[in-house]
């Protein structure tokens, strides 16, 4: 039987998803007996030309991680889409925008000004910011265009499956890949390697009374490792986040940050969490309610840490 052709690629990403694949460890070797990896720039020396050279639909399954933050990301996404039978948005960035999409709370100009002018470590007397085209004596040099609004993979190309997580946890990754290798696949558009229920369903912590009198931030306390973090005033995204990660953060006595993304029947992870959280504020008067609400620093960063790209509002108004 012919080996399946797999491809891995990254867009605007930290590389964590690549590492996640290495979590397969020796399984990876066994895997290569079943599949042929035809494109994986992060690991081996592939050129985009190699990809371009391939006939359309030549790749069986392509895993793309990272968000779409510049024209290069988009270009490769489109190319990979064309060359692959199945395109998988792999990891939080590709699926929901991830950390890069928090750039949508600002603008290209602000980012440039900050990175190329204002940061104390920058020496840039001419105040040069990246230009997509520059004329040099060697000729015209171009770099990709930096987008003002970061997008998820499926906002630029058609996506077949999603694998959430920042990064997806090892055992889920191997499950997913075997799923593909063995070809037992759910309907297009499904989320793989995650539970359809929220993290609370698998959370071992004990719950007592659902109410919050005061918001506490993780650096302000050492939470009781047995008790639900919400009830200790710590914002845990668990209720609004897909399970399946094995609640690794909670085991480290840290709250869920929401990297596994929104639940199947919800429109917006952050909004849902906001509603759930505020609903159990232990306050009756406007003043008291305001006091607790004020305890929530940076709502967007808290509720959309990983899902800004897939949120209802998607960016802030500037």
């Amino acid at each position, binding site marked *: 039987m012919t080996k399946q052709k797999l491809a891995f690629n990254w867009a605007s990403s930290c590389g964590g998803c690549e590492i996640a694949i290495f979590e397969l460890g020796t399984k990876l070797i066994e895997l290569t007996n079943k599949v042929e990896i035809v494109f994986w720039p992060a690991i081996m020396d592939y050129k985009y030309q190699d990809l371009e050279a391939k006939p359309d639909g030549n790749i069986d399954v392509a895993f793309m991680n990272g968000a779409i933050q510049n024209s290069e990301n988009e270009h490769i996404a489109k190319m990979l889409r064309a060359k692959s039978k199945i395109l998988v948005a792999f990891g939080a960035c590709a699926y929901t925008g991830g950390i890069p999409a928090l750039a949508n709370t600002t603008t290209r100009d602000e980012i440039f000004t900050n990175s190329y002018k204002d940061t104390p470590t920058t020496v840039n007397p001419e105040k040069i910011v990246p230009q997509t085209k520059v004329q040099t004596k060697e000729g015209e040099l171009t770099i990709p265009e930096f987008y003002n609004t970061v997008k998820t993979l499926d906002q630029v190309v058609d996506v077949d499956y999603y694998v959430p997580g920042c990064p997806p946890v090892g055992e889920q990754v191997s499950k997913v890949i075997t799923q593909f290798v063995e070809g037992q696949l759910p309907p297009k558009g499904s989320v793989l390697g995650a539970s359809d229920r929220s993290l609370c369903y698998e959370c071992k912590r004990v719950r007592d009374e659902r109410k919050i009198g005061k918001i506490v931030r993780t650096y302000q306390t050492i939470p009781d490792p047995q008790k639900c973090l919400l009830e200790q005033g710590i914002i845990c995204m668990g209720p609004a986040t897909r399970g399946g990660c094995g609640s690794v953060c909670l085991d480290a006595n840290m709250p869920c940050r929401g990297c596994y993304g929104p639940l199947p029947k919800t429109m917006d992870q952050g909004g849902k969490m906001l509603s759930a959280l*505020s609903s159990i504020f232990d306050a009756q008067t406007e003043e008291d309610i305001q006091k607790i609400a004020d305890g929530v620093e940076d709502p967007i960063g808290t509720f959309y840490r990983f899902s800004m790209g897939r949120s209802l*509002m998607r960016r802030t108004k500037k």
Partner: protein
Amino acid sequence: MSSFEPKIVGFLCKWCSYAGADLAGTNRLKYPSNVSSIRVNCSGRIDPTLVMKALALGADGVLIAGCHPGDCHYTNGNIKTLRRFKLLQKMLDQFGIERERVRLEWISAAEGERYAQVVRSMTEQIRLLGPLNWKHEVEVTA
């Protein structure tokens, strides 16, 4: 700008605010036609994501109206709305959405004039702010 007619979605609780809006009608009070109401059992039914969805879909403003604190037909659904609203308001500030665009008001079944007043002021304020046009906001600045 003055020709711009804001599209405002009004979520009205059926016991107080919707009845208040009806009373405005019975009293033949006049107010702008920009708010179209959706009758819900309780303002507590209104989930912040519904508000954001409305804005994302193209509404220029959203009005949530319920019974005065203490008068809620379901004892304190309106207080739960208030809790959600306070935090939502804080987040909408971050999204750059002007406070005039999303309002929570207590309007009793007896306050027809108050309903008319709220609609008048809200329509005027949003007219001055101009269209929100969120789709455009997201697409064009891409």
